């Protein structure tokens, strides 16, 4: 099927399912606009890329929810989110303390503000994932490698048994559960100490 003929909700579904082709299509359709905008406001091309990718990640997470519907075009959403992220970055760097989108004179200031919550949720999620990654590091080997092989590399228990030297998949599975139990302990300890 011609990708350019896909409807917006199909694009969203593709993004949610980590469909690389569709993600690339949406990327190509929109990154230039964000890059040019950021470059016109004190950023470099790399800054533009970073901000755009963060906006794409937010869209990815939002699209995970099956009930998620956009009230605007995907491109409009990405640009508004990117603008919010960039303004916030500028503000954090204290370059322009008064420079939030609301008083920037930006035409779509209200649109940008409408997505403030999306960015906040995303930031909280990033912190959460960082804690999870930290707990994973603390786990050490072989647990770290084993869990990564299963969850990140999508390997089967059969393959994992071979890779990590277990006599059969069931033994590997028992080890995986032990690892999960330890990870859970570490992770919830980190949550409490936060």
């Amino acid at each position: 099927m011609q990708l350019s003929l896909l409807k917006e909700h199909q694009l969203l579904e593709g993004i949610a399912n980590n469909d690389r082709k569709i993600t690339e299509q949406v990327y190509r359709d929109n990154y230039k606009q964000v890059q040019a905008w950021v470059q016109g406001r004190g950023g470099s091309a790399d800054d533009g890329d970073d901000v755009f990718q963060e906006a794409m990640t937010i869209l990815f997470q939002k699209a995970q929810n099956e009930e998620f519907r956009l009230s605007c075009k995907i491109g409009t959403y990405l640009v508004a989110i990117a603008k919010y992220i960039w303004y916030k970055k500028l503000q954090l760097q204290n370059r322009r303390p008064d420079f939030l989108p609301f008083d920037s004179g930006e035409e779509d200031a209200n649109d940008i503000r409408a997505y403030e919550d999306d960015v906040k949720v995303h930031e909280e999620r990033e912190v959460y994932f960082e804690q999870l990654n930290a707990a994973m590091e603390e786990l050490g080997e072989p647990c770290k490698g084993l869990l990564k092989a299963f969850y990140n590399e999508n390997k089967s228990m059969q393959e994992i048994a071979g890779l990590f030297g277990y006599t059969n998949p069931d033994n590997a599975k028992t080890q995986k559960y032990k690892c999960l139990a330890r990870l859970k302990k570490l992770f919830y300890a980190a949550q409490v100490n936060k």
Partner: protein
Amino acid sequence: MNSENNIWTLAEGYLNKSLNAQELDKLDQKITADKEFAQEFQEAIDMLFSLKKNASQKQFKQNLIGIQKKVAQEEKDAPRKISLRLHYLRTAAIAAGVALIASFGTNLWNNRTQANTSKYSELRKVRTEIEGIKQSQNRIIKVLDNKANKPPIDNKYSGTGFALSNDGYIVTNYHVTEGADSLYIQTRDGNYYKAFTVSFDANTDIAILKVESKKFKFSKQGSLPYTFAALKSGLGERIFTLGYPQDEIVYSEGYISSRNGYLGDSMQYRLELPAEPGQSGAPVLDANGVVIGIVTGKETKSVGTTYAVSSNTMLKMLKNLPQSSNIALPKSSKLSKMSRSQQIEKLQDFTCVVNVYK
């Protein structure tokens, strides 16, 4: 340990929807009966869910980085093709022809500024003037030879800029760069360099740009030859400016006719100084070669009245830049004991055209 394993098996089965009705019922009963188990089970579900989400987001981000690399590589490769080079040349020739016709018809610059205000006009230049077309073509060809820096041909506006540091920080007018898709500066030797906006202030009409290339230098000799006046200069002070109203750099001189600018703006000077479109962002220097301001606009109804943002306004803005920009302005002017023509000779190396593409 068995009951522990049991929880994970159940949690995995629950998430994969592989539990049958009987197993689900049993699970349900246990959750209602055993509060501790319920808590443990909830945590296990959360854990597995987070692991999956984390992994899929990582995958997504990796995809994005892959796509970005692919796209960047394509952009890098594109201008190297020979056919495209020919295409650029052809477009350049057509653009020059169109420019000729346009300037016989209407003067775009006039139309534009008259719509804004009848009294005050910004000196950004719309590139439709006849003069310099031949030179433009020469430069276009030169640029095409210079594979590394190739701006698009059809720039819409140009202004003047000048160096804040030898390694490529530049000051110009905000109205020159406003809404730009991309910016290229053109130095004295005719080479183009891509630049980006570091900071700007629409109120004072100042924009700070930086040349992207880390190797860029305005001059081999090192530091800036001029300094910036921290206080406002006095009425009647003789001043001069260098700018690019056309492809060739142009010198003009005059004096400070009022210490405040347009409508009494204390951040500006009012000057008696001839200026033309394209000179926006040009440096205004006093007899000792100290920068006292930046040309920003002129009065449309009188011939020689020009306005300039004062250098102390710009210095205030520099203070607010992040420390990483690291602009160290020289403390003494090398131009003070020189004749005017020697001053101009030095200055030319640090003055550039700011080409704006939209």
